[in-house]
């Protein structure tokens, strides 16, 4: 997070002077550093401090002219040699109010860009208004190089003085604060995929919602702002109001500040749609199936439009002159089939809460979602009363927790989570104290160890990769539909078009306002955009490109009432997701402590004592969805629709012209959201036909035929087949058939033995279950053994090959990603990201690229040759063994979470030696042969990579076992 200050010179002609810059270690600077910069006397540097303030008596005009003056003065100063421009709002008094620092900074930044002066000086902001991570991100993103949040520091001083912060002095408090801000900004940058502060500065990767276009053009040039909104005058008015309260003519309040109520609800604070009244009415109505109270709830939510809580609140439904008789409207039962609950993992919420949602959704024919935490196979078996706890939607997220063949086969929808609406760019996070034995088992992870899902899928770096994963998943369960979850943001329509072309059956547009209390506050508040905008864009782009007809559009993000569903339908969605509301119905009272494991109503906790307090019932959730559907019907009748299908995309039934009675909303213009492209009549505006997944061309159709005896009679079969790189995802449909028939058990080892010759395409043996062995003479592409689930994979070069196998790449990148069990023997070198997120498979390979065994939580990996760098990053379970031929492995290993050891005992040595021996037998490996021949020498070169967490857990288990032993003997 260090950065350089001072003028930048010609990039194309670097000279020694180009390096003359001032390096600061953090973009957040304390008062001393600011003073140094202000009084700098180094040659080539000159600073100037300009006030960010305007005369309140002059109102909006005053702010406008103050900004103009500021820009002109800064320009002149730079022309006459200033290289550091410090914008300061310290000079605020009774008559002058501060110009919001972001407005001044961004405005000046763009002014200087226009004037061609921007690189000649650095902008530093000395301001009282920056305090949260998001504020700093914005200031930096709009051009600031450093920020001195003096008021935040003074607040710390005040807190120390009052005894609110104890055991800490000014310097330390400022350091802690600065460090926290730095971490927060870094996190935001990483979410956006930006690695250096220099690239983030001025990148302005933001979308404005509710800012006037002209205003944006002037001060935030080129920032997308799609629905208009407030301009300088409104901002000035708000600033003056705050100033008036800071300098009141009649001071009368106690020394206390407003409490705001943004993060925790307060009566006089920010309005929250979920507040004591609405939560109570929602819970009471669904528990007692009281539609009257439910209508009171939805009335409260729907009328919150006057409070400007949502974009849909600004829309009006156009009711028909002749409404449809409600009896003619599609029944509740068929509407409910379009409902889904959101992806909340077992782990983030309790077993009880998770299963309640699953049972309820199965009862109404809707879909519940596993979230990314896998699912306990016990739930695949229906309950005696006919209920099913099996989640219809199985999510496949970046960490691939518990994504086994059985998990995939038991789904009727497989959802690829590209991002989460509430926290786009972030993976899920489950703190260690929520990872108990059961959760660890279901996730194939280590109890007590926090689980962080990587933000990206390691097998998706492009839309083609996504298409491949869609194909893989379709093969893993041809009966399931595939869905891709995207986050609403500007440009989501283009991505959705890609998703449609990649043959996804469903695309989910997730809005910004969802998320549990475990989501980071910066993300909850400031990341993503409302689903209304994302959905409107998606539908427009899909229709425009005639792709809408082959993909279902789903949306979610704080849908709460029947009216919300109706608006989602009119904007173009066929299906609707609910999460927070469903949890509230189950008893959630929005404590916002989901990350602390202390949920007092047993919803978001794994603590057995607290879980007992869970009172939610599937009936309540069913009641909720019934009442939502009933309300949808009422609106449909009024608008004049008999079926939801008719209603999808009918934006003409929405009205936004009615001005909202609020001085800040009058300039909003939602009409761009309602525009529909002119398309020929044959272009459909909703899904009318299935995607062509191309499974009929899969090699597996032949394999199924040839393996008939094994599939039907468990008779071992063997076959030999040629293969070429057009044969993708080979063995996966066959595997799904084995799992469908024989469950997690699979077939006895080697029941289906197939020997391929040639070059295999991508995802060879993906999700292969137990009982199938694939031998490949030749080589394979990327994703070899992706999600391996008990099967056996062997690959070796053609016997006729003359090259040294151990020195040549034989399989591509991302091998064994997310494997849960099974074995792989690879005679040759694998590419990058080998066995990332492996949680149980055993693999022997003769060399690998960078990032091997990243985030691994289980299994064994033996590398007989060199590894790339960053080995074992984030590895919390399983063990790797490396033959450290040159003695330099430690340099390439990421030692944050692992220790390097030697083998423990003879038993372990035997285990490794046996595996190498098997590798030799199966692949005819010369390398293995050589090692076994000279074992005494090579055993010394074996390095064991042991995750610290895993060692702790193994030790605990040993103690536990010893205790049990003692008890048995004494008992």
């Amino acid at each position, binding site marked *: 997070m260090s950065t350089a200050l001072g003028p930048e010179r010609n990039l194309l002609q670097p000279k020694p002077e180009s390096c003359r810059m001032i390096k600061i270690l953090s973009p957040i600077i304390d008062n001393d550093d600011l003073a140094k910069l202000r009084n700098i006397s180094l040659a080539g540097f000159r600073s100037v401090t300009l006030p960010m303030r305007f005369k309140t008596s002059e109102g909006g005009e005053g702010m406008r002219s103050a900004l103009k003056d500021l820009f002109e003065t800064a320009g002149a100063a730079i022309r006459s040699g200033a290289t550091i421009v410090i914008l300061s709002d310290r000079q605020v008094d009774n008559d002058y109010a501060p110009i919001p620092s972001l407005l001044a900074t961004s405005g000046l930044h763009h002014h200087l860009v226009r004037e061609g002066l921007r690189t000649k000086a650095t902008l530093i902001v000395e301001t009282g208004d920056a305090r949260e991570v998001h504020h700093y991100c914005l200031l930096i993103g709009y051009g600031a190089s450093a920020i001195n949040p003096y008021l935040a520091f003074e607040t710390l001083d005040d807190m120390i003085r*009052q005894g609110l912060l104890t055991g800490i002095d000014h310097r330390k408090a400022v350091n802690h604060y600065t460090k926290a801000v730095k971490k927060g900004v870094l996190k935001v940058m990483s979410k956006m995929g930006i690695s250096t502060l220099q690239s983030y500065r001025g990148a302005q990767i933001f979308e404005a919602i509710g800012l006037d276009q002209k205003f944006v053009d002037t001060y935030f040039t080129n920032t997308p702002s799609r629905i208009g909104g407030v301009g300088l005058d409104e901002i000035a008015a708000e600033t003056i109001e705050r100033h008036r309260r800071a300098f*009141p003519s009649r*001071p009368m309040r106690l020394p206390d500040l407003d409490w705001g109520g943004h993060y925790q609800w*307060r*009566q006089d604070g920010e309005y929250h749609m979920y507040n004591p009244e609405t939560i109570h009415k929602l819970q009471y109505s669904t528990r007692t199936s009281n539609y009257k109270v439910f209508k009171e709830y939805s009335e409260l939510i729907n009328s919150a439009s006057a409070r400007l809580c949502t974009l849909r609140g600004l829309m009006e439904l156009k009711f028909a002159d002749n409404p449809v008789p409600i009896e003619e409207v599609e029944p509740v039962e068929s509407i409910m089939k379009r409902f889904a609950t959101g992806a909340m993992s077992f782990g983030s919420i309790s077993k009880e809460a998770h299963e309640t949602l699953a049972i309820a959704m199965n009862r109404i024919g809707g879909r519940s979602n596993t979230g990314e935490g896998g699912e306990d196979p016990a739930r695949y078996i229906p309950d005696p009363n006919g209920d099913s706890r099996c989640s219809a939607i199985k999510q496949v997220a970046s960490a691939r927790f518990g994504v086994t063949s059985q998990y995939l086969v038991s789904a009727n929808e497989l959802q690829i989570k590209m991002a989460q609406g509430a926290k786009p760019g972030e993976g899920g996070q489950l703190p260690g104290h929520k990872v108990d034995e059961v959760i660890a088992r279901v996730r194939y992870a280590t109890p007590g160890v926090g689980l962080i899902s990587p933000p990206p899928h390691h097998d998706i770096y492009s839309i083609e990769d996504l298409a491949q994963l869609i194909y893989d998943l379709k093969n893993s369960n041809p009966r399931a539909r595939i869905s891709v979850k995207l986050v609403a943001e500007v440009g989501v329509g283009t991505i959705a078009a890609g998703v449609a072309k990649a043959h996804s059956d469903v695309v989910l547009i997730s809005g910004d306002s969802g998320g549990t209390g475990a989501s980071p506050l910066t993300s909850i508040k400031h990341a993503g955009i409302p689903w209304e905008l994302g959905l409107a864009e998606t539908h427009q782009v899909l229709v425009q490109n005639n792709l809408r007809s082959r993909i279902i559009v789903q949306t979610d993000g704080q849908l709460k009432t029947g009216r919300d569903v109706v608006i989602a339908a009119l904007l173009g969605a066929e299906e609707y997701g609910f999460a927070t509301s469903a949890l509230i119905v189950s008893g959630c*009272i929005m404590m*916002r402590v989901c990350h602390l494991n202390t949920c007092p*109503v047993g919803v978001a906790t794994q603590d057995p004592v607290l879980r007992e*307090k869970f009172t939610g019932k599937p009936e309540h959730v069913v009641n909720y969805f019934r009442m939502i559907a009933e309300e949808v019907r009422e609106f449909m009748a009024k608008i004049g629709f008999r079926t939801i299908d008719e209603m999808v995309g009918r934006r003409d039934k929405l009205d936004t012209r009615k001005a909202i009675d609020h001085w800040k909303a009058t300039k909003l213009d939602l009409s761009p959201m309602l525009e529909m492209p002119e398309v020929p009549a044959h272009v459909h505006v909703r899904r009318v036909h299935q995607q062509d997944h191309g499974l009929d061309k899969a090699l597996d159709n032949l394999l199924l035929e040839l393996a008939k005896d094994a599939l039907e009679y468990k008779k071992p079969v063997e076959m030999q087949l040629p293969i070429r790189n057009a044969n993708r995802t080979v063995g996966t449909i066959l595997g799904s058939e084995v799992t469908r028939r024989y469950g997690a058990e699979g077939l006895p080892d080697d029941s289906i033995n197939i020997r391929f010759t040639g070059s295999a395409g991508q995802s060879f043996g993906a999700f292969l279950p137990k009982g199938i062995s694939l031998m490949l003479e030749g080589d394979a592409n990327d994703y070899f053994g992706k999600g391996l689930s008990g099967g056996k994979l062997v690959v070796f070069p053609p016997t006729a090959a003359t090259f040294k196998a151990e020195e040549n790449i034989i399989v591509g990148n991302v091998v064994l990603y997310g494997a849960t069990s099974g074995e792989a023997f690879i005679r040759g070198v694998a590419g990058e990201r080998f066995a990332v997120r492996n949680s149980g498979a055993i693999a022997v390979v003769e060399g690998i690229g960078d990032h091997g065994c990243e985030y691994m939580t289980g299994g064994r990996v033996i590398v007989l040759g060199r590894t790339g760098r960053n080995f074992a990053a984030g590895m919390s379970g399983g063990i790797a063994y490396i033959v450290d031929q040159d003695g330099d492995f430690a340099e390439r290993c990421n030692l944050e979470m692992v220790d390097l050891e030697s083998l423990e005992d003879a038993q372990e040595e035997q285990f490794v030696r046996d595996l190498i021996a098997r590798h030799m037998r199966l692949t005819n490996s010369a390398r293995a042969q050589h090692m076994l021949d000279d074992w005494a020498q090579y055993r010394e070169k074996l390095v064991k990579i042991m995750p610290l967490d895993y060692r702790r857990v193994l030790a605990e288990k040993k103690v536990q076992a010893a205790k049990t032993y003692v008890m048995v003997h004494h008992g």
Partner: protein
Amino acid sequence: MGSLKGFLEIGRVNFERRPIEERIHDWQEVYQEFPEDKLQAQAARCMDCGIPFCHQGCPLGNIIPDWNDLVYRGQWQEALYRLLATNNFPEFTGRICPAPCEGSCVLGINADPVTIKNIEVTIIDRAFKEGLIRARRPVVRTGKAVAVVGSGPAGLAAAAQLNQAGHWVTVFERADRIGGLLRYGIPEFKMEKHILDRRLNIMREEGVMFRINANIGINVPVEELRREFDAILLAGGATHARDLQVPGRELKGIHFAMDYLQLQNKRCEGDKIPDSEFITAKDKHVVIIGGGDTGADCLGTAHRQGARSIVQFELLSKPPLERAPDNPWPNWPNIFRTSSAHEEGGEREYSVLTKKFAGRDGHVAQLHAVRVEFEGRNIKEVPRTEFTLDVDLVLLAMGFFGPERNGMLEQLGVAVNERGNVATNAEKMTSVPGIYAAGDMARGQSLVVWAIREGREAAKFVDKYLMGHTDLP
């Protein structure tokens, strides 16, 4: 929130009451001192909810989670500021509020709620003890004058707020002492009156003026108010008591609760009231009609006066021990409660309808009653359940209809709504511009905490009316 698992590890502990044998022989408050460290532990039970229902349950919107946490961390002064931000008189509510906040405490879903009220009273008592509660004279005087009629909790809260806003406030009280129901309604054993005096002294020092024995429309003409003041706030309470219209009501020995309580309160103040004018329960068989808080106040008073026997009748049926299904959290729990007075003795009878009184020598001697059942909202007498009871003193604690209409209200010409209360608009103004109403007078009988809220709200709108805008919360 200081303690993450406080609610799991610490159980609710209430203030302890003094031994019954001791307390029924004096008039002092019934609660004992509670150790500070134990109170801080109680504050640690607060979960600092994302949506604090207590904060909604409290009519004042007290920011309960904030001060709970501050108390837990020993930040008493900060806690005080946070408390005073929404409540002018926590020393009153902390003693006599039934604490709807606790009824809506999220912990109450499946455990005992936080002892919010005890924490509140400790914060303010401690602040008084440490001298933190000092007069804060307004910095700027507006030169505007406001008359507040009625010195109960609504009037006092409004006066305090309006004074802070810089107006000259005069509070008119028809009784001989300031305080309204706080003074003469609440028995000493629930709130010792020096608590009230202490607050009034501060208000005087801050510049609020008080006029006692000033009955507007009777001995102070309404024209004077109109002439002398820029705005008028009516906070005269709902003093029109509900009567029991049954044969024998005219007999001696049947009194309204307020008359009874007031006399004892005056004696506690040190007033010399001859026995002939006093109402005492000493050595009498007492029946209290009405099962509410006022009834309980009569009960505790009668205990202390030395009643021979006391029975309290309630028309409604006995509430359940736990919440009924149609009375879910976070609504106020309609459950069977035992106040300090109930603990001290007496019997409670539910579903009883008093039919008539019989007398001897013009004095009540017997009460005739019958048991009733409810069918929905209809009362049905249960055949053959009639009974009689010997009685020397009957106290009617059956609530209030609304404000007294003759006199001031009539002369001011303010409209009355269908419920008999002074009609006000959303900004608390009556039908007469510049005249506002708050508290029971506008709302009908309610809690002290509602009165304070009403007074604060009205003050805000009076300030806005006078100045064009307001910064009052």
